[in-house]
């Protein structure tokens, strides 16, 4: 390609286009517009409002709720304009970020899923929000400690949690009654779930179904107080190997497998959307799903049956543990001018306010990240409408903080999840024993971690 100069190429191309495309009359003009609009952005200091570009992955109704928050912020702040841009699913948006690094085409603020945290830190492209917290003397004690924990590394908060959720057990109260089970007492341990599932199974209705979702496995580990990775779940030091094949994993998978074998639990694949639709249609009586799905699950069951919620089941009644925070957080990019980063921080603070969180919570079903939000009247009202949500809040508050419940961190998390899911499938389809499948997956994950660590400069 070198023999051509870039200009000649562009000229050639343009002439080709003129020759070729009579239809696209807008040639060139958008470019001019672009440069024109970009110029004042860099030159102006005080007069023009600071523009904050926020990339997010919130679509559907949730996307609308996010836009609503942005509009409110812009109305309140005359000196800042936040521009929310939907950039596809989490991994698509992250890819786009990666491609834009090292140029000014990236955002000022980006929403990244929780398992992308290690990548964001290793990319060295971000300013930890702790810097702004310290400079601002911002009081973080109002925020949920269990949520902040996930995004805290080396005692520094790197990003601000935005949408957070946990897995809970959903069950069909009417089916419980019909099977002679107490509809107000959801099964709490593996053993109780297995027994209930057996009783609930009849023609046209299975006891339950869990989606083959790596996230559930991670949560069930934490719920036994077990760590998924060495080096304190990768938090005291970069992780070097996976502990997936440990007793916690084998016990969980054996239990799951036994229920599938007894036909009291169905294997409906990897998508929680599939299990929740089966649940709503009354085909399964129990399922695991995110708290963020609560509203839609309750709504879709309206007029058919009453939905109950319970804690994520534990291996034994007396093990200590709890759930990990899932969801996503907002990161500030360090290649933007300081004024812009500060403006982004203002927006983050706005999002963390009780009022914003209350609104966000009732419109989406994600947890409020500040406890104060529960005092807002709209939240109280919502709680009476969806009393099931109390379970989720209690579960979050009862979680004892530890390295296990803080959650694992690794650069190859998306891949590790996929490998875990394959391992579960191998067990449920009778290809391998639990121990064998998990050991194999752990080995594969470990080698991926080693490879990753090689590429990250210290």
């Amino acid at each position, binding site marked *: *390609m070198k023999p*051509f100069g870039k200009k000649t*190429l562009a000229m*050639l*191309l343009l002439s*080709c286009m003129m*020759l*070729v495309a009579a239809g696209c009359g807008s040639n060139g003009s958008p470019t001019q517009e672009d440069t024109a609009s970009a110029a004042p952005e860099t030159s102006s200091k005080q007069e023009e409002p600071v523009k904050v570009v926020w990339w997010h992955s919130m679509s559907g109704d949730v996307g609308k709720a996010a836009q609503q928050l942005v509009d409110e912020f812009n109305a309140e702040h005359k000196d800042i304009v936040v521009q929310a841009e939907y950039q596809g699913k989490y*991994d698509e948006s992250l*890819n786009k970020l*990666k*491609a834009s*690094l*090292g140029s000014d085409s990236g955002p000022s603020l980006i929403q990244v899923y929780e398992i992308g945290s290690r*990548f964001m830190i*290793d*990319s*060295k*492209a971000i300013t930890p929000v702790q810097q702004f917290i310290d400079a601002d003397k911002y009081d973080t004690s109002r925020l949920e400690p269990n949520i902040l924990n996930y995004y805290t590394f080396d005692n520094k908060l790197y990003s601000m949690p935005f949408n957070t959720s946990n897995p809970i057990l959903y069950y069909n109260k009417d089916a419980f009654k019909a099977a002679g089970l107490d509809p107000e007492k959801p099964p709490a341990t593996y053993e109780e779930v297995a027994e209930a599932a057996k009783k609930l199974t009849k023609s046209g209705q299975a006891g339950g179904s869990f989606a*083959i979702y790596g996230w559930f496995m991670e949560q069930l580990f934490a719920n036994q107080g077990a760590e998924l990775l060495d080096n304190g779940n990768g938090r005291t030091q970069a992780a070097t190997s996976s502990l997936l094949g440990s007793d916690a994993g084998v016990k969980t998978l054996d239990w799951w497998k036994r229920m599938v074998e007894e036909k009291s639990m*169905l*294997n*409906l*694949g*990897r998508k929680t959307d*599939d299990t929740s*639709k*089966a649940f709503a*249609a009354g*085909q*399964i009586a129990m399922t695991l799903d995110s708290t963020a799905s609560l509203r839609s699950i309750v709504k879709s069951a309206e007029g058919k049956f009453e939905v109950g919620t319970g804690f994520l089941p534990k291996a034994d009644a007396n093990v200590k543990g709890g759930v990990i925070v899932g969801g996503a957080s907002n990161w500030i990019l360090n290649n933007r001018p300081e004024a812009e980063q500060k403006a982004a921080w203002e927006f983050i603070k706005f999002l963390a306010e009780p009022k914003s969180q209350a609104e966000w919570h009732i419109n989406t079903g994600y947890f409020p990240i500040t406890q104060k939000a529960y005092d807002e009247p709209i939240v109280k009202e919502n709680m009476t409408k969806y009393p099931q949500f109390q379970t989720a809040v209690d579960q979050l508050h009862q979680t004892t903080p530890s390295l296990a419940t803080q959650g694992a961190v690794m*650069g*190859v998390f*998306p*891949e590790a999840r*996929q490998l875990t*899911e*394959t391992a579960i*499938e*191998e067990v449920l*389809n009778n*290809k391998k024993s639990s121990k064998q499948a998990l050991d194999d997956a752990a080995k594969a994950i470990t080698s*991926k971690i080693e*490879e*990753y660590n*090689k*590429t*990250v*400069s210290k």
Partner: protein
Amino acid sequence: MEKNISLVSPLPRESSRQEGIASLRTSRWKERALAYFFLAPSLILFGIFLFFPLLKSVYLSMFLTDPQGRVASFAGADNFTNILTSEVFYNSLWITVKFILLTVPTGVVAALLLAAISIPKLRLTKLFQFFFSLPMAVSVGTGSIIWMVLYHPTLSILNYALSLIGISPIAWLTDPKWALLSVALMTVWLNLGFNYIVMLSGMQSVPEDLYESSKIDGSGPFRTFFRITLPLISPSLFFIGVVSIISAFQSFAQINILTKGGPMNSTDVLVYNIYQDAFINYRFGIGSAQALILFVLITLLTIVQFKFGEKKVHYQ
């Protein structure tokens, strides 16, 4: 190439009627110049948007990349040896081959049959021709969403239909034995519209008097089809064959939406693997190496098809 372009300017307006070797030579020059001029726009665009990235990925394939996608350390041929010695790669390759075998012959034959039954001129022929080409209007993305609902593990309308005739439900996408088959079925449907249109236009360009004369010869419809139609549309058949194989190799969106390579890696085709490495797991080096291997594989296969296939193709 620039040289050729500058040569073009005096375009040959009339082919020369003058005799003599000199004019013959100029007309040959003019023909060449015209050819390069005709090829130039495509070649320039390919150069910038396809070959340049390809060269870049050759470079990347020899390195390990950091989370930002930048070159971290030189790996030489390591990426290639790692891939070529890994079980995952051969598993993916085998699945890709199975996927091609499931989709390409079925797709071609189905399109051929549809074209054959919709070519006789009946009153409603045009309507059916429209119906058969409809899947073409559906993109892979939306098509996958539609089939995801059709294949739902418990609410599937297909399973309901099966239950009406006494067949127990099929776990379309969640049973490792079925998943690839289900994705293949959906892919055949998706490509049917286009394959059909190409076949149809191929058949329509067969001069009608050929049919007439074969009718007069007393040849039956089947004989006519195999003796006359098939050879005459062999360029279209060849085209569809080559293109279907290439597109089957590159099928990605339906796998990403329907199965994500699962269950138990049973639908983990090569491109899905590449996508995973390059876009999810941030290993651009390995992803590039794998993509290059894929590129070489498709190229070899296509060369073979041209070497052996095009000989049998009948051009008028």
